[in-house]
């Protein structure tokens, strides 16, 4: 029995608890434990990813109860990918937070950080729809704590709105899960996949109601327009390492859409099949427009990062919204790219702000600052990735998405949306970069030394390296995404891993 599947949840939970209990007043100890835990998580995630590489999903029956009666964790390619992505991001962000001393601007940073990881990992691993709710809550409440890290009026007022909106979202989640249970009698997602097609005709309206309500919930988490209003203020107010970590948060919504609308309401779901299809794509296009308009409108590097993140959600949900194998592969590639690039932008904005004194990260001229060229170079690369210019992963992702959308009847509109918003992003980034890194205000004396955060700079640089690696190894990376998508579109392997072959056979054929 391999307990490795549950480690990504239990390890951060216990480490965080330990930090709160025993290391509450010792920042050094907190850092040691937090970083060690994050590194261990990275190793475990890598191990799990390799494990999942054989294409056979694995399930872990918590409490040793047979599925679908207890809760199961399921490791398939998709969950392993999300775990790995989270761990990589977390490792670099944790390093950054410690090296930039952001972690000492408030209480409990490392504990909350670990809890956040627990929530994320739990959400990616779970095979139970209600447990998904629980872990959504874990990751949300940890994120509330993290958003408020460092306090200050802005964080508090924005945090308040963030909490309120997500509470409303959680309420909706419960409604939807309740309805789903009422018509199917189960919570296990594999079991749902088997039962949804057999829901009687008379209950279809309720089933579909639950399906669309769930979609609204996931769209709120994913910040799809017009359910995105909570995001810009919150992310802009959050401390930079937190915002960087939050680059993965919107992807949780995307992940949930993939999981539920392919496994449960996928092609085989009978009358409720592919119910998400009419909604995701238009919302994604709208999100892309709003996000990139925001990029154009930005008045600071952080705002730029925020809006680029919003836009990237739209971009990645365009192909995902097709609910096809090819679309999923393209979307997943873009998901990985946009998460790491988005995080890099937040950290770079912070590194700049720390050096520019009063000007901060505002798009205004300021006296020269230390390591301006280095940061400018990093920003240039990150911007190339974010805008989607070659040769970095943003371009490759965009091409993949354009190709995938080629078969769509509304191709012209979608392509035009992507290309025009790319132009808006280009303009936004060009203006921002040339103002911040090139435009100089004369100063009495240029600062001679920086804030002493070389290690933080390295962490940010490592994030900037991500789009390069993703581009350089685009072939194998996309192949992995394709394998992931293929597995996702073969629900039978998932169902078999959870419920066993016998049950699958009983329920008849499922593609």
């Amino acid at each position: 029995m391999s307990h490795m599947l549950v480690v990504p949840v239990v390890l951060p939970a216990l480490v965080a608890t330990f930090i709160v209990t025993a290391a509450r007043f010792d920042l050094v100890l907190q850092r040691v434990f937090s970083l060690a835990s994050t590194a261990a998580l990275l190793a475990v995630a890598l191990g799990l990813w390799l494990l999942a590489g054989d294409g056979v999903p694995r399930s872990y029956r918590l409490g040793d109860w047979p599925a679908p009666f207890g809760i199961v964790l399921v490791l398939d390619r998709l969950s392993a990918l999300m775990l790995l992505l989270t761990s990589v991001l977390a490792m670099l962000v944790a390093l950054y937070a410690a090296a930039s001393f952001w972690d000492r601007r408030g209480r409990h940073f490392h504990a909350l950080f670990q809890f956040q990881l627990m929530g994320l990992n739990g959400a990616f691993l779970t095979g139970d729809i209600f447990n998904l709710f629980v872990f959504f809550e874990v990751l949300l409440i940890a994120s509330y704590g993290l958003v408020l890290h460092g306090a200050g009026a802005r964080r508090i007022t924005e945090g308040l709105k963030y909490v309120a909106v997500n509470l409303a979202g959680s309420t909706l989640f419960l409604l939807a899960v309740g309805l789903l249970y009422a018509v199917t009698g189960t919570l296990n997602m594999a079991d749902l996949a088997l039962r949804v097609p057999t829901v009687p005709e008379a209950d279809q309206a309720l089933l579909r109601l639950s399906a669309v309500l769930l979609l609204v919930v996931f769209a709120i988490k994913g910040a799809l327009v017009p359910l995105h209003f909570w995001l810009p203020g919150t992310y802009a107010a959050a401390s930079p390492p937190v915002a960087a970590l939050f680059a993965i948060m919107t992807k949780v919504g995307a992940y949930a859409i993939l999981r539920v609308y392919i496994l449960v309401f996928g092609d085989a779901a009978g009358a409720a099949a592919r119910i998400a299809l009419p909604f995701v794509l238009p919302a994604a296009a709208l999100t892309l427009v709003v996000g990139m308009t925001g990029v154009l409108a930005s008045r600071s590097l952080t705002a730029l990062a925020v809006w680029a993140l919003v836009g990237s959600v739209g971009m990645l949900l365009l192909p995902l919204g097709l609910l096809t194998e090819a679309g999923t592969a393209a979307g997943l590639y873009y998901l990985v790219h946009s998460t790491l690039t988005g995080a890099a932008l937040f950290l770079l904005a912070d590194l700049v702000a720390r050096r520019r004194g009063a000007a901060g990260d505002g798009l205004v001229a300021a006296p020269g600052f230390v390591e301006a060229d280095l940061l400018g170079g990093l920003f240039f690369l990150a911007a190339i990735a974010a805008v989607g210019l070659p040769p970095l992963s943003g371009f490759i992702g965009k091409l993949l998405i354009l190709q995938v959308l080629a078969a769509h009847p509304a191709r012209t509109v979608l392509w035009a949306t992507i290309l025009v918003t790319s132009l808006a992003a280009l303009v936004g980034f060009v203006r921002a970069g040339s103002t911040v890194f090139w435009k100089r205000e004369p100063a009495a004396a240029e600062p001679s030394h920086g804030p002493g955060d070389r290690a933080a700079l390295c962490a940010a640089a490592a994030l900037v390296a991500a789009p390069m690696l993703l581009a350089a190894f685009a072939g194998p990376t996309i192949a992995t995404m394709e394998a992931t998508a293929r597995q996702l579109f073969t629900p039978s392997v998932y169902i078999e891993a959870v419920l066993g072959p016998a049950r699958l056979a009983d329920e008849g054929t499922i593609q």
Partner: protein
Amino acid sequence: MELLMASGVGVLTMVGVYLILRARTFPVVLGLTFLSYAVNLFLFAMGRLAVGRPPILDPEATGYTDPLPQALVLTAIVISFGMTALLVVLALRGYLETGQDHVDGRVRSEGDAP
């Protein structure tokens, strides 16, 4: 009885939704409390309504109501308790920090004195 339950939940939802659309933090908190009442009842009722059939095993019992929604609601109550507590404190904290509890966009001038 089912009609009472359904309409009651409907009214609680209505009040909750109306309150969260008010422009101050306190009504929003109250509204979310109402929504939480509504959704807890809703989720609970997914196991249908039954009188005198608590899911506590008893040799003399004639049947049990569905225990699972109850367990889910219990979890939901606890979670929303934590969330509400945080929201309440945030509302307080925001007021202390800024001197106002208006959350409906940029602060307007009229009648806004704390």
